């Protein structure tokens, strides 16, 4: 599975995350910073809930009419002389891109940040074909230099590294000799990247939104690197997930505003670039040749399913910044380039349950993600739906759990059994009780009592007290 990262065992990955105190400090700090900035930006806009509903409506509308907008988009790109390719699988997308690269005799590729190219694992594919691929987003560049360390956050890919660690990576890999000051680190990267931009034959970008009506696409960045990726090389390839469309510029404005506020707490980012097709005769810059690769990779299976709303996602990362589980385990624990709540919902859909069966359970269903999502995806509800799928359709739940839940169903269906069960509890638990607490519980209680005390069941249940009280005429 291309988007898979890290060791195979979920528990091992989590253990590693929990023990990485640098990462945890960085994540907690970033969550607090980004969370409060997001809140301020939302408050500043006013009527935030109305904006969210509007964003949701736009995204739902597009998904309901995706075939129509995809056709409109590709017709408009073709009419301007651009090429459009629909890739059903990562392999098809990679193959097409490689063919374009080879047909140009290209050896050097620069890229701006794109999650979908991570999803299809484009870089290693091109590198195997003998290309030099350079990531030009600073965060992505740092990870690339650090032997392709995978991203741990969809917006801030190197979130798990602090500036000292980045300095060490630069020193070791690039012969960097200055301090860990962010300006100095950035200046060094900029000098290297400038040269790469000038030498590149091909620029590859992702796509925040494509505008169907005009055949344009929009890139939202803070570094301006995407502008160079699209302005300098002669050939440009843009890769997009097939759902990332808006009908017109009117809707684009709404979604960009929701995106920048939710992602980084900014009214607008420093650069919002809209490009339309290859360079035309009277234009001074832009690529001579333009290719749009639209990636399905399982998305059409999600359309029309009970998970459709996950395709509303605009990849802002707000859910990740609000997630208390992500806070402690970090992005790599999810074993996928998509981490946090969005990752826990999306990864099993794209990569199957077999390899990702723990992800839907890596949530307390606290709802913090759902509360911040700017397009109102019911994230924790979708995690619950995954659990239902795993239990009922996939039959992948542990037997002991199934039996316990069966018993629950029986007991709960019959008030008599239920009362009997609760009445027996104190006696059944008696061997484990010391004082009023259980420190070492049996069965499912074991995991609980490894960490915490469990209360001993009261000999007189509440319902007995109530009944006796009525009898005594106390009420």
């Amino acid at each position, binding site marked *: 599975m291309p988007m898979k990262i890290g060791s195979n065992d979920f528990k091992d990955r*989590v*253990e590693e995350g*929990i023990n990485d105190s640098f990462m945890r400090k960085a994540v907690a700090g970033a969550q607090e910073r980004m969370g409060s900035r997001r809140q301020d930006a939302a408050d500043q806009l006013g009527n935030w809930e109305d904006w969210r509903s509007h964003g949701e409506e736009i995204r739902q509308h597009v998904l309901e009419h995706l075939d129509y907008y995809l056709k409109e988009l590709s017709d408009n790109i073709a009419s301007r002389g651009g090429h459009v390719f629909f890739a059903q699988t990562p392999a098809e997308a990679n193959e097409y891109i490689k063919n374009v690269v080879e047909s140009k005799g290209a050896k050097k590729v620069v890229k701006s940040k794109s999650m979908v190219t991570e999803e299809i694992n484009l870089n290693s594919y091109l590198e195997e074909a003998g290309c030099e691929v350079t990531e030009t987003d600073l965060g992505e560049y740092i990870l690339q230099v650090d032997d392709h360390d995978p991203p741990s956050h969809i917006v801030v890919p190197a979130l798990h590294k602090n500036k000292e660690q980045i300095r060490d990576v630069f020193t070791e890999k690039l012969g960097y000799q200055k301090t860990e000051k962010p300006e100095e680190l950035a200046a060094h990267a900029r000098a290297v990247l400038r040269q790469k931009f000038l030498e590149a034959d091909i620029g590859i970008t992702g796509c925040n939104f494509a505008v169907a009506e005009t055949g344009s696409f929009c890139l939202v960045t803070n570094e301006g690197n995407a502008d160079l990726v699209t302005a300098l090389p002669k050939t440009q390839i843009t890769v997009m997930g097939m759902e990332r469309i808006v009908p017109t510029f009117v809707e684009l404005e709404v979604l960009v505003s929701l995106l920048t506020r939710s992602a980084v707490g900014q009214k607008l980012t420093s650069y919002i670039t809209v490009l339309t097709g290859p360079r035309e005769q009277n234009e001074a810059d832009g690529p001579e040749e333009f290719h749009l690769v639209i990636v399905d990779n399982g998305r059409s299976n999600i359309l029309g399913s009970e998970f459709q709303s996950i395709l509303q996602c605009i990849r802002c990362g707000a859910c990740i910044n609000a997630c*208390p*589980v992500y806070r*402690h*385990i970090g992005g790599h624990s999810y074993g996928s380039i998509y981490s946090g709540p969005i990752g826990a919902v999306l990864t099993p859909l794209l990569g199957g349950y077999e390899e990702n069966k723990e992800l839907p*359970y*890596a*949530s*307390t*269903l*606290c*709802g*913090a993600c759902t*509360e911040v999502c700017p397009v109102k995806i019911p994230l924790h509800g979708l995690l*619950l739906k*995954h*659990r*239902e799928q*795993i*239990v*009922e359709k996939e039959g992948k*739940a542990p037997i002991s*759990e199934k039996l316990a*839940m069966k018993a*629950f*169903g*029986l*007991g*709960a*269906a*019959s*008030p008599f059994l*239920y*009362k009997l069960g*609760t009445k027996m*509890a104190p006696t059944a638990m008696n061997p484990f009780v010391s004082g009023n*607490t259980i*420190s070492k519980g049996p069965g*499912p209680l074991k*995991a*609980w009592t*490894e*960490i*915490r*005390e*469990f*209360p*001993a*069941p*009261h000999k*007189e*249940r*509440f*319902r007995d*007290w*109530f*009944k006796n009280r009525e009898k005594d005429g106390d*009420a």
Partner: protein
Amino acid sequence: MKVALFATCLVDLFQSNVGKATVELLEHLGCEVEFPESQVCCGQPAYNSGYLKESKEAMKRMIETFLDAEYIVSPSGSCIAMFREYPHIFKGDPEWEPKAIKVAEKSFELTEFIVDVLKVEDVGAAFDASVTYHTSCHMTRLLGVRKAPMVLLKNVKGLRFTELPGKEQCCGFGGTFSVKMAQISEQMVDEKVCHIEETEAEYLIGADAGCLMNIGGRIQRKGKPIKVLHIAEILNSR
């Protein structure tokens, strides 16, 4: 006013003191409290684990039990949030959906009921101690009850309140999450306990038995001197 008490399974079995305080408090406020004997569990443990079929059995029993009640009140935000989910769960079911709506509409979390229905903001309680309060995710995010407990606590005589840092952050309970993902849950509850300690409060108060069992269990295990009480117990102190 007649109130049917939905005690919740945790209170019935492990925290009868919370149930008692709830009854006494409601009676003090002039309500006539009954405890429908056929009540079971709201279905949440099974529902949140993905066992929809099994959980619906419990839900149907609960709907039948409480259908004719005038008001349904529970000392647990999470369980009332579950009741309010019933109409969505039974959507399109001609027999159960209308009943589910009826039950959901007259279900209230205890503090919400006191402030919004009884229109009481001062229950005449007195509690001479420093306290902090854990807000609970389901109570705040799913139920939207944020102000009621604050208003009631503010009017308790002698009570000194300190706000909990990171108060909206989950304590790591999450029902079966607490055992299934114990290693993560531990980190979450530890951060919560740290925040509680920072307030230097003598008592941690909450309105959800699940969260309190989690945080309280960890506090006890670590041998911290902080005491844990349900808000019903505070409001019933005089």
